[in-house]
C-alpha cells in the first residue's frame, strides 16, 4: 500500500471514534561519515511509519508503528483506541483541523538529493576534507527525501514532499593545546559549499588552539554569530512564543501581546515562504502554514499554536531539521517553520569596530538559555576579546553570564549575515550588559 492508502485504511479502522487522524511518512536517507579525516561509514536508510491519534468523549490516545509488516494499520489504530480508553477526559481538546486551502507555496524539494548515490556523497566529504588544513576527526552529511500524508476524520487530506540536508563537522588543530572548531549545515537543497565549510573549520580550530584562559571578571557586550545565537533565541524567545507555554502560563511573555518585550530593532517573523528544511504549505497536522510577524519593532504581536492549544497558526510539527528517521514516533509539538530575525545593515566586522569592550563568541560549550527565566551561564570554549573596536585576545576557560530576555531588550546591532539554523534564520547580533568571568 502507498502512504495515501495506509492513511485512508487507518481512518476506516477508526470509524468507531468521534475523531481520528493518521500521519504516514516515508523517507530515504543517504549518509556518510568522516572519522579521522577519512571517509568511513556510508549508510543507506529506508524508513516508514505511521502515527494515529484518536478521541472519543474527549478521551485521547496516540499510537505509532513502524511500517515493517504487511498489515500494521489495524494494529496501530487498535493500540491508539486502547490507550485512549484509559485516558481521563481532556476538556481542552477541540478536534483535529478542518480542511483548508494553503496560503503558502513552499517548494523545498531538490531532485538531486533524491537521486544521489554513494559516490557523490563521498565526493562532498572529500571536498570538505580537501579544503580544511586542520584535521577533521568527526563529520557527517545526511541527505534525506521525505514524503508524508496527513488525513483526518474531518475529511482533511494533505501531502508533503521535501528534501533535507544536514551536516555537522568538528575540526582539530594540534598545537601546544589542541583547538576544536565546529560547523553545521541545515537546508533543503544540495548547495553545500564544501570549500567554505573546510576553510571555516580550519579557521575555527586554529583560533581555538591559540586561545588562552581568561582571567578576571567584567561586564561587556557579547557578539553572537548565527551558529551560537540560533539556539539562544530558540531557547528563550522561541520558548516564550510557544502557545503551550503561554497556555500553562510558564512563558514570561504570557499576556504580553501589544507590549514591549525586546529592543525596537528586533522584528521576528515565522515565514514558511522563505525556504528552510521544515517549510511546507501545511504543518504536520494539516493546518495551512502562514507568515506571522511575532515581534514587530520590539512589540509582541502573537504566539505560535497547534490545534490542541487552539487557534492553530500552522505550527503543529513532528519533523525536525536534523534527521528524517523515526519522525512518526514524535508527538506533535509547537515549533516555528522558519523563524526569521529581520536583518540589519552592518557586518560582523562593523559590529566589532563599534564595540568598546566586548567578546565575539566563536564557540560555547552548548548555547542555551533557561526557557523559564532566560538565565544563562555558558562556558566560552573560544571567544575573541574586543577592546576599542579591535580584537586583542582569543580566550577560553571563561563563563559568560546573563539573561537572554534582558539581552533581547538590550540589542546593540543586528547584522546582515543571516544563516538558516534549522527552524530559525538569524544574523549575527550584539547585546550589551553581560558578565564574563574567568579563573
Amino acid at each position, binding site marked *: 500500500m502507498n502512504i495515501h492508502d495506509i492513511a485512508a485504511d487507518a481512518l476506516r479502522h477508526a470509524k468507531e471514534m468521534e475523531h481520528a487522524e493518521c500521519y504516514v511518512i516515508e523517507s530515504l536517507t543517504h549518509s556518510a561519515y568522516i572519522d579521522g579525516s577519512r571517509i568511513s561509514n556510508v549508510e543507506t536508510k529506508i*524508513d516508514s511509519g505511521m502515527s494515529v491519534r484518536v478521541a472519543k468523549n474527549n478521551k485521547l490516545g496516540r499510537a505509532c*508503528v513502524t511500517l515493517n509488516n504487511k498489515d500494521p494499520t489495524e494494529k496501530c489504530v487498535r493500540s491508539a483506541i486502547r490507550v485512549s480508553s484509559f485516558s481521563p477526559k481532556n476538556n481542552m481538546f477541540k478536534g483535529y483541523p478542518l480542511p483548508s486551502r494553503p496560503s503558502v507555496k513552499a517548494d523545498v524539494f531538490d531532485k538531486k538529493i533524491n537521486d544521489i548515490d554513494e559516490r557523490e556523497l563521498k565526493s562532498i566529504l572529500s571536498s570538505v576534507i580537501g579544503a580544511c588544513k586542520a584535521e577533521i576527526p568527526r563529520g557527517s552529511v545526511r541527505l534525506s527525501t521525505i514524503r508524508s500524508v496527513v488525513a483526518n476524520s474531518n475529511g482533511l487530506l494533505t501531502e508533503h514532499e521535501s528534501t533535507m540536508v544536514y551536516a555537522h563537522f568538528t575540526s582539530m588543530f594540534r598545537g601546544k593545546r589542541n583547538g576544536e572548531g565546529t560547523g553545521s549545515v541545515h537546508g533543503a537543497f544540495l548547495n553545500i559549499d564544501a570549500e567554505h565549510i573546510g576553510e571555516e573549520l580550519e579557521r575555527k580550530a586554529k583560533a581555538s588552539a591559540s586561545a588562552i584562559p581568561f582571567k578576571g571578571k567584567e561586564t561587556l557586550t557579547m557578539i553572537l554569530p548565527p551558529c551560537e545565537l540560533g539556539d539562544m533565541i530558540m531557547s528563550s524567545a522561541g520558548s516564550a512564543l510557544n502557545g503551550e507555554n503561554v497556555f500553562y502560563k510558564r512563558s514570561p511573555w504570557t499576556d504580553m501581546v501589544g507590549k514591549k518585550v525586546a529592543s525596537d530593532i528586533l522584528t521576528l517573523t515565522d515565514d514558511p515562504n522563505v525556504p528552510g528544511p521544515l517549510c511546507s504549505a501545511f504543518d504536520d497536522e494539516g493546518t495551512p502554514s502562514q507568515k506571522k510577524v511575532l515581534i514587530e519593532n520590539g512589540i509582541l504581536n502573537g504566539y505560535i499554536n497547534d490545534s490542541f492549544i487552539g487557534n492553530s497558526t500552522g505550527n503543529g510539527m513532528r519533523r525536525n531539521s536534523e534527521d528524517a528517521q523515526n519522525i512518526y514516533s514524535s508527538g506533535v509539538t509547537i515549533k516555528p517553520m522558519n523563524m526569521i530575525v529581520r536583518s540589519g545593515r552592518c557586518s560582523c566586522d562593523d559590529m566589532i569596530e563599534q564595540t568598546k569592550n566586548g567578546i565575539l563568541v566563536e564557540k560555547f*560549550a552548548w548555547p542555551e538559555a533557561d526557557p523559564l527565566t532566560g538565565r544563562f551561564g*555558558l562556558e566560552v570554549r573560544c571567544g575573541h576579546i574586543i577592546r576599542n573596536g579591535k580584537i586583542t585576545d582569543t580566550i577560553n576557560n571563561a563563563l559568560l553570564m546573563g539573561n537572554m530576555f534582558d539581552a533581547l531588550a538590550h540589542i546593540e546591532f543586528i547584522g546582515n549575515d543571516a544563516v538558516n539554523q534549522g527552524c530559525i534564520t538569524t544574523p549575527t547580533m550584539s547585546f550589551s550588559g553581560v558578565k564574563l568571568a574567568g579563573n
Partner: protein
Amino acid sequence: MHDALLKAVRMMQKNGAEFCDARSQIIKNIDIRSVNGDIRHLSDKTVGGVCLRAWMNGRWGYYTTTFLDDIHEAAATAVKNASGYPRERIELNVKEIKSKRTQNVKIHPDNADMKEKVNAVLDVDSSQVRDKILNRIGAYGEEVSKNILINSVGSEIEWEEVRTRFRAMSVASDGKKMERYYGGPDGTCGFELVKSIDIEALGRSVADEAILTLKAKRPPSGSMTVITDPMVSGLLAHEVMGHASEADEVVKKRSFLSDAVGKKVASDVISMYDNGTVDKAHGTILYDDEGTPASNTCIIENGVYKGYMHTLESASLMNSEPTGNGRAENFGKRIWARMTNTFFGPGDRTLDDIIADTKHGILCDKMVNGMEDPVGGGFEAKVLRGFLIKNGKITNMLRSFTLTGRALEILRTTDAATKNVEFDGGMCGKGIEDWVNVSSGGPYCRSDIIVGGG
C-alpha cells in the same frame, strides 16, 4: 526474523564482506505525561527494523530498513557502501556467542495494568497542588527493547532490555519569578519501580522544593570550593572523563586522554568506572549492539588512568579487548563507543563531615545538563540550585548556576568523597545526536571549580 538475518549475513559474506552482522530490533514504549491534572500525552509506540553492517577495506557499510523485503538488495547495498579506496586491513576480534537472555524484572511492563500507570501519573500530579505551583507535571515512561543479532563468526544472540522511569516536576511562581524542581526514579526495572515509591510524598516534596527555590539568592562567581552532589559528580565523570575515554575518540587522537594510560590524572580520592552490569541502573545492558557482553571497565584507579571503552573496531585498532560499549540509538543509527553506567567510586567520608570542614563553598543540588569536551578537557555543568556553605554550615539557598574549568585541574583538587554512590539515569548524545540510555553517578565530591550564574 532469525532466518532472514542469517540469510542476510550469508549474502553479505558472499558479496565480499570480511565481517558482517545483521541485527533486528523492536522497541516498544508507553509514555504518559500530565500537566495540571490533564493527561497531555498518552502514547503507545512501536519502532522496529533491521540493520545490516558489512566490514570491508577497514570501513563499515550500513543498510538499515524498517521492512526487510529484498534481502539480496539490502546485503548488496551494505557491502557496496563499505567499498571504495581501501584503508588499512584490520581484522576484527569477535568471539562467537550463542545466547538468549532477558532482563530480570519483577513486574514486566506488559503485565502491568495501564490504568494503574495512568493513575500513578495523575496522583503525582495532584499531590503537587499548592498556591504557588503554576505547573504540575507527572511523567511515566517504559521501554521494552527486543534484539536479535547474528554475525559472520557464528554468533546468534537474542536479548530483551526493560527500562522504566517516573518523574514529577513542579514550576513555581511568586508572580515575579519562576523556578522549578524535579525528582523521581528510573532504572532497568519493570513497574515495580513505581510501586516501590511513595508517589504522594514525591509530588509533595518536589512542589515544596520548587516553592523554596523562589527565595534562592544569586550565586557568587569565580573559583570556589564546590561539593558536587552524586548527580553533578556523575556529570563530571560522564561528560568530560567519560566521553574522552570512548576509544573511537582515542583512536583518532581527538581525546585529551589519548596516551593517558598509566599516568596520574586525578587525586588519589578519584576512581572511575563504566559498568554496564550494575544491577537495575538505567544504563545497564546485557549486550552492546555488536553482541559483546556488558562489562565493568576501570577507567581511573586511585587517580591513575587505566583504560578506554571499546567497540569491536577500536579494540582491534588498539590491540585491546572489546568492552561491550559499541552502542547505537536504535537499529537505524550508527554504532559508536558509548558509555553505560559511568561513575566515580566511593570515598570514606560522610557529607556532614565534609560540609563541617568546608570554610567557604557551595553544595550542589541536582543537575540541569552538561556538555562534553573530549578535545579540550573542559567541563560545563548546569546545576539546578545549590547552598552556600560558610564556616562549616549551610546558609543561603542559591539559584541555578554553572560550573566550569579543566577536568584534570578539577580532579587534581578533589580532596574528599562520601561513602555512598548514587546513580541518575538519562539519555546521552555523542556530540549532538545518537541518544542512548545511560546513567551517571558517584559520591559527593569536594573540589575547586569555577562557578558562575546568570
